[in-house]
Every structure is written in structure tokens, then in C-alpha cells.
């Protein structure tokens, strides 16, 4: 029971971090039809910006300034580069963001070095919030939950209660029609791309010190975020939210549940010995492959429900 509750909390925190990253990507993906490979790079930049800013004026200003910088950079990239590439189709855009990710990584290595940087949790939040069954729940985890929940509410309000939100929503599902109605679709693109970058930057600010801020943080975070977006479905923020939580919880519980196929077979009376075919494979305990489960789920969902969990349209 105690393991269950602690794991639930852990899974929730990790899932919400994934959501912060994935929500921006899902907006960009839905609108432009392109998986933005540089999205995780924005997450990394957010962490590094926050590190540099927090050394001068502290963590709290960094929480606002670093995502803003990422948003600015995103807007510039969209207006001066991506828009030109856009004319040449989706593949060109995809390759463009792919190259961009490498350039940003190299730039980060040159500016901040190859080693991790000492980006730390602010002292006010660096203490246990409460104890649950002998385990501390760190205050910073609580803070992460709070920020991501606020973010979810803010995006939701923005998309459903404001005029620009309505235009974005419309452009998510019917981009051509929105353009035909006389809205400035390129500007909507810029806003969405910049907004997505802000969200990624924010995720970087609060994820960078929770995890470790180092130049490979983008590459290692990238794949799982793609999985969340595709799993959740195109054009659906709610799908993205649910997918994030599922991925967070699945990875957390996979570690805690110490079973293998062999154990399951034993329940129904089939005992696996070393002579059984595929015995090596059948006896692998779940925790050993837990981190790969999201990818398995991605494959399954694409086979069964190609639009993803709550996807509303194809790319």
C-alpha cells in the first residue's frame, strides 16, 4: 500500500514534467504537422538560461526570464527560418528542425562546456515537504506539480476562453479554412511556435535542477516526449495530458512491480525452466525493461488506433 501511494506521487510528478514538455510540442505538431526535433533543445536552453540567470539575480526572476528568452528565440526561428522552409513542405521542415537540434546542442557545449553545470534547487524549496511512510516528499516536487498544474489551467483557459485561443484551436483542426476566413495564419504559426518554446523553456527551468543540466539532456529527453505526443493524439491537449500521466505512471510502476512473463505463466500453471524456448526472454523482470514500455505502447497504439489516444485528425 505504501509503495503504491509513494509510486503514485512519483509517477504524477514525472508525468507532469513530461506534460510540460509535450504540451508545447503537441501544439506545434498539430498546427504545422511537423515533429519539431528542436523542441527538447528548447527545454535544454531553458535550463541553461535559468542556470546563468539564477547565478546573477536568483531563481525566481529566472523562472520568468528564461522561458521568455526561449519564446523569443522560438519566434525568431519561426519568422526568419522555418517560414521560408515551410514552402518546401513538411520533410524540409522536419530536416530543418533536426539540424537545428544539433546546432543548439553544439552551441550549448561551446557556451557552457561539456560537464554538467551546478544548477541547484532554490534553498526555499530544498527541504522535505512531508513524510509519507518514511519517505520524504521533496518540496521541489510539490512545486513542480503546482507549476505544471497552473500551466495546464492557463493553456486551457487561453485556448477556450480567448479570441486568439479560438483561432488557434480552429487552425489546429482546419488550418486552410482559418486562412480563408482572413486570419493571419502565419502570425498564428509564430505565436504557437513561440508559445511552444516558452512551455519547453519553462519545463527546462524547473526540470533542469530537478534532473541534471548537461548537454545531453535534450537528446535523452527527446524520444519520450515524441512518444507522448504521438500516443496522446494529434490536435488534442487533453490527449497529451492523459498520455503524459500514463507514461509517467507506467514507467514508475514498471520499476516497482517485480514480475516477468515467467511469473505470469506460473500463475496459470506453466513453469518456465532453462529448457523452455525463449527462457532468456521470458524471465526478464519488468523493471529491467520498464523504461522501454512507452515505446512498446507507442507501437501498439499506432497499430490499433493510428490517430492516437484522443487524436481528432491525421497529419
Amino acid at each position: 500500500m505504501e509503495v503504491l501511494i509513494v509510486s503514485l506521487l512519483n509517477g504524477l510528478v514525472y508525468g507532469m514534467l513530461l506534460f510540460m514538455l509535450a504540451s508545447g510540442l503537441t501544439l506545434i505538431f498539430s498546427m504545422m504537422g511537423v515533429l519539431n526535433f528542436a523542441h527538447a533543445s528548447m527545454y535544454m536552453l531553458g535550463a541553461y538560461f535559468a542556470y546563468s540567470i539564477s547565478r546573477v539575480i536568483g531563481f525566481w526572476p529566472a523562472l520568468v526570464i528564461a522561458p521568455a528568452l526561449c519564446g523569443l528565440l522560438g519566434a525568431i526561428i519561426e519568422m526568419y527560418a522555418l517560414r521560408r522552409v515551410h514552402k518546401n513542405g513538411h520533410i524540409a521542415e522536419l530536416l530543418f528542425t533536426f539540424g537545428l537540434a544539433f546546432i543548439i546542442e553544439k552551441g550549448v557545449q561551446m557556451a557552457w562546456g561539456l560537464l554538467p553545470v551546478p544548477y541547484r534547487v532554490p534553498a526555499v524549496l530544498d527541504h522535505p515537504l512531508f513524510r509519507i511512510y518514511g519517505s520524504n516528499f521533496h518540496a521541489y516536487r510539490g512545486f513542480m506539480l503546482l507549476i505544471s498544474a497552473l500551466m495546464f489551467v492557463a493553456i486551457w483557459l487561453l485556448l477556450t476562453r480567448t479570441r486568439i485561443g479560438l483561432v488557434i484551436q480552429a487552425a489546429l483542426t482546419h488550418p486552410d479554412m482559418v486562412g480563408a476566413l482572413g486570419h493571419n495564419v502565419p502570425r498564428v504559426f509564430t505565436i504557437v511556435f513561440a508559445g511552444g518554446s516558452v512551455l519547453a523553456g519553462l519545463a527546462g527551468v524547473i526540470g533542469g535542477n530537478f534532473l541534471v543540466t548537461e548537454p545531453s539532456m535534450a537528446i535523452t529527453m527527446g524520444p519520450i516526449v515524441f512518444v507522448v505526443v504521438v500516443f496522446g493524439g494529434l490536435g488534442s491537449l487533453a490527449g497529451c495530458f492523459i498520455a503524459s500521466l500514463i507514461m509517467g505512471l507506467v514507467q514508475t510502476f514498471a520499476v516497482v512491480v517485480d514480475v516477468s512473463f515467467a511469473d505470469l505463466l506460473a500463475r496459470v500453471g506453466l513453469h518456465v525452466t532453462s529448457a523452455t524456448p525463449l527462457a532468456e526472454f521470458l524471465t526478464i523482470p519488468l523493471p529491467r525493461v520498464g523504461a522501454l514500455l512507452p515505446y512498446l505502447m507507442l507501437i501498439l497504439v499506432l497499430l490499433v488506433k493510428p490517430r492516437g489516444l484522443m487524436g481528432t485528425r491525421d497529419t
Partner: protein
Amino acid sequence: MLDRLNRIVSTLLAIALVLTAAPAHAQGTIKIMYTDPLSGPFAQVGDQNLQQFKYIIDYINGRGGALGRKFELVSFDNKSQPSEALLALKAATDQNIPVIMQCSGSNIAAALIEGVDKHNERNPDNRIVYVNCGAVATELTNEKCSYWHFRMDAHVGMKAETMVRALPKDVTKVYLLNQDYLFGQSVQRDVKTFLGKLRPDVKVVGDELIPLGKVKDFSPYITKIKASGAQALLTGNWGPDMTLLIKAGMDAGLDIRYYTMYAHLGGGATAIGPAGNGKVRSVMSFHENIAVETGKTDTEGWTKQFRSTHDFDFYAAGFRTIFEFLQAAMNKAGSADPVKFSAALEGLTITDMLGHQVTMRKADHQILSEYFVGVFTKGVKYDSEKTGLGWRTETTVLPKDLDQPNTCNMKRPTS
């Protein structure tokens, strides 16, 4: 007209080429080919190694080099690829360089051993010695051992034994957590072997393999470790798999002993930070406070000098031992010819910079040197990576205690 000009120019170029490609074997410096990743994700490792090698070579050359000649390092980026390392070998043998040196990656080391063996067999008059400065797979001096390969670092088995020897008497429940690939699995296997041999009273309450570099949030593992009642966590993890694990443990307030093999290397101290105070331990060949603890003021001054001229800490005492070994062997043999000095290097014993007697074991060409377990703590003279915390020795294991048996059956050159 143009044709003639072309011909003259190309003739001149050819002459220039012949002149510059003077025989490298001539009296002059003793060249050492060093190959490691100097670009890509692991560039930092190669780069820091290179800087320390340069510092050491300057020192050794200042003390006469070998045979009255100076050592010179030639570096070659192998991009963490065995095939590129073999190119480095080719470049070395083309220039008659007597030693090739490589530190990271046991897969690369295995390729080099094979390459060096083949080359030496085919070219009896142009042989080369391979100095392994950090590829740690136990097989390299056992099943795969070679006369031309000298390993100047403790292997996984020795590191595992050191870790087990460092466990205090009151620790009776341990949790193993390692990366799911060749290295992590051998740490897992060797730690268990030595626990059985040296500490039968210790119970392994958890034994876990994690996918390499895939886990972001280690808190579920921490929950499990906590539930298991373990008093110590033993891990061979490196990079983010190590730092994220420790950070998650600190966040959850899991107050046990963390035994690692790599927390002391570049970036570890920064990533762990002050939260690791008094909890994190690392199995290591050196840290800067050892000289302070044992009163070796000359060594302390020497590493302090490095600190003041570089932006990272000195960690490679073993590298200095390598050059002291080469110096001693070449002087003893009276030659920089690989056949002659390799024979002198076998079974050679020298005193290292910490005052211990270290031996190049003849049977398998495995170095026997002292090893340490340090704890990451406040209040030491030299801190790590400007964190305010540094390493303090908790356990010292002497060379004689690490004299593990080997299965090497090497073929020695007959000539």
C-alpha cells in the same frame, strides 16, 4: 609553358615531402601515440586525460625522460570507435612509434589488443606496445590477455573487491543497481562474487539492472531500495545514471551509504552537490587529499600546481605511474625498442607518487597498485570542482590485497 611549370612545381613538392618525412625513429623524442575520444559526447574524458598527460610528461621530461631522451605525446581522436583506434595504431606503426596508449572503452581495447598482436606477428622488426590506461573489462588480462598489452589500471574485479572491502562491519544488507550492458553486468557479477568470498554475512536484498541512459526519474527505484531495508547501495553506474540516482536518493531522504565507482570523475561532484555530504562514496585510484592525509608534501605540491593552472582537478595519479613505469623500463633495458623494454617492464616494481610499491604482474601484465574508497564530504583541504566538498579517504586497499588470480596464458615472443 603551363605544363612545364606544373611539372616543376610537382617535382619541388615531391622533394619537399621526402625531406619532411624524415625517419621518425631517429634519436630525438620518444613518441607515445595516445588515442581516445577527443570529439563527440565523450570528448571531455579524452580532453581532460590529454591535459593531465601533458602535465605529467613535462614533469617526467624535467626529470630526465628516459635514456636521456624526452617523451612526446601524439594524440589521435578515435571518436569512441574501434575502427578509428585501429587507424591510430596504423599511424603509430607507420611512424615507428613504440607505444600506443588508450584509456576509455573495453571494446576499443579488445580491438587494439587484436590489432597489436597481428601487427607484431607480421612485423618482427617494427613492434609496438599497447599501454591500457583505463579499459577495465576483466577479460582483457584474462581470456584475452596478450604479451604486448600492459594494463595500468585496476580492472572491474579489483574495483569490485575494493568496494566490498570498504563495507563496514555493521552493514549487512546491500542493494545492487547496475546498468544493463557488459560493464554493469560484470560489476554486478563481481560484487556478488566478492561479497560471497569476503563478507558471507552480507545479504543482497535487491539486485537490479536498469536500461543504460534511459531512466530519468529514479525515485521509484529509491522507493524500492527503501522498502528493502538496505543499508548500502552498491552501483557501477556512471554519467546521468549515477548522478540522477543519487539525487533522487537525497531528495527522498534515503539515508544510506552510496557506494559508486565513478562519482569522483569529471562532473560527478558538480551534479551531486552539497546534498551528498557524508553519504556518497567512490572507489578510486586517487584524490587530491590523499597526499595531505599521508603527509606526502611533494605530491601535494605537485597536484596543487596542476589545480592552479587548469580548470579541473587532478585525478590521474595512475597516468604518472604509467610514465614512471615506462621511464624505469626503458632505462633498465637501455632501449626504447618495444621488444627490449617490454621484457624489462614485466614484473617490474616501482614506488609511485603516494609511496606505495606498485608492480606490473608478469603473468598477465596487470598492474597491482593501491586503491582507495573516499567519502564526499565537507571540511577537506582540497574540494572538488569548486563545490566546497571533496574526498576523504575511508578505506585504503594495498596492492597485495588486490593480487587476484588470473587465467592468462600468454604467448611470449621467442626472439
